[in-house]
């Protein structure tokens, strides 16, 4: 931490630094591109992730696989645990709040985390409303299963989007479904003329201005990562080839046989996602992958991706 705040320097120079701007929030996510963000539950795991080349860590109390196993209400992590992880690494630290639980988000901002994940992996606190993310200095990442959902989150202030996938399963099928859905809907918008974009906005249940922006850019106006079910280097490379700008890996690393080695391998495969030879080399001798769950055997009540709207 700097001893002089930007506010103090503003008075001195007559040049007013601004914190928490959309450019600073979205720009932070741009710096994470091409990287892997890893779920960790202890400072020791955070150090393993940093040493393996993670661009950031997600501090949480239990990885999604354990949340599934243990059941009960999943909440924001213990502040002491988050402090411990912030103190252990120099890379950015993210943490999760429940959907709509803006007070948990306020606490995470006060704790100084670098990004807040308003996450369906935790038990939702509000079944109608997500948090107003414009009200925060700390940027937010949110999950989405389709383009309309992504744009609703961006309109609420999300500065980064991740496809949801199905966290804690070690099964990449839902991540693929959501990424393909988002990319296909973006592709369709690009083919529409100006008259058709109004009806498209209505169908997507998303603000017209954002719909038009996506049609013009041919991409989301914020960084798009993939999450939920990535367990191998090939999974990470698959998501990147499908259009993800980076990946979140949750249970896949620390529920595997050799976390340090698997973490480093997934980092390499994420950078050289289009080079099968590098990915094959990175995939050797990694030990056991996490066991995984077949998503079609999951009852509706245990599907995290259907939380949030």
């Amino acid at each position, binding site marked *: 931490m700097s001893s002089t705040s930007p506010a103090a320097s503003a008075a001195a120079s007559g040049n007013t*630094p601004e*914190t928490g*701007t959309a450019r600073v929030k979205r720009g932070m996510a741009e*710096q994470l591109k091409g990287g892997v963000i890893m779920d960790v539950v202890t400072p020791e795991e955070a150090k393993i992730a940093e040493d393996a*080349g993670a661009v950031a860590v997600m501090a949480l109390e239990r990885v999604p696989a354990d949340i599934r196993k243990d059941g009960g209400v999943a909440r924001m992590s213990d502040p002491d645990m988050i402090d411990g992880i912030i103190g252990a690494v*120099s890379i950015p630290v993210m943490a999760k709040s429940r959907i709509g639980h803006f007070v948990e988000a306020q606490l995470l901002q006060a704790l100084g985390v670098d990004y807040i994940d308003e996450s369906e992996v935790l038990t939702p606190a509000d079944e109608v409303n997500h948090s107003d993310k414009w009200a925060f200095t700390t*940027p937010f990442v949110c999950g989405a299963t389709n383009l309309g959902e992504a744009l609703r989150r961006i309109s609420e202030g999300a500065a980064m989007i991740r496809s949801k996938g199905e966290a804690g399963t070690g099964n990449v099928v839902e991540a693929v479904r959501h990424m393909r859905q988002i990319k296909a809907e973006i592709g369709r918008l690009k083919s529409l003329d100006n008259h058709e974009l109004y009806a498209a906005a209505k169908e997507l249940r998303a603000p017209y201005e954002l719909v038009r922006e996506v049609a013009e850019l041919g991409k989301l106006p914020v960084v798009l990562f993939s999450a939920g079910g990535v367990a191998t280097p090939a999974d990470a490379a698959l998501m990147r080839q499908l259009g993800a700008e980076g990946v979140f890996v949750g249970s896949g690393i620390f529920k595997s046989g050799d976390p340090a080695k698997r973490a480093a391998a997934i*980092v390499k495969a994420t950078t*050289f996602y289009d080079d099968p030879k590098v990915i094959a080399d990175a995939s050797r001798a990694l030990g056991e992958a996490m066991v995984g769950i077949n998503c079609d055997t999951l009852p509706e009540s245990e599907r995290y991706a259907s939380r949030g709207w």
Partner: protein
Amino acid sequence: MNDTQRPLIGVLALQGDVREHFAALAGAGAEPRTVRRPEELAEVDGLVIPGGESTTISKLAVAFGLLEPLRERVRAGMPVYGSCAGMIMLADKILDPRSGQETVGGIDMIVRRNAFGRQNESFEAAVDMADVEGGPVEGVFIRAPWVESTGAEVRVLARHDGHPVAVRQGRLLATSFHPELTGDHRVHEAFVAMVRGTADR
């Protein structure tokens, strides 16, 4: 040297905001090219090391055998521009390196990582930068480093809050902030001019 008027400039594409530098270089009159392998590095006239996570970029550069080729080309006089993490990679010394964090080096300076604070302290401010005409540039500082101290050969081009945030030594240029996020290509134009200048010598 490839086409002198439109030099081939690489963007180190191991991790970070590669696409933004790519667009800025194209807007500044260069032919951008991604660089992930030693043979790709050998082809370019100059290189940008983008913003990103410096520990990640450093580890990947070591793992894929790029660090020594990068050092050799810097010693041989290839122009390089680094923003944020790229500035850290160009520093001869990091004040608080993580274990095993290597830099390419080349600029005789010590940098302090995340010196301006964590993400909540990240900010935008106007920056007056020497060698860049037409008024201040928009400085976007994201968990930004600053330069703690510099050697005699290093010119400080800009300061914020008293700390050097843009420096040049010979053909190496570094900024704490991210001009690639602003759509203003003047810093990249200054770098492209440096690359064109190498051809004249």
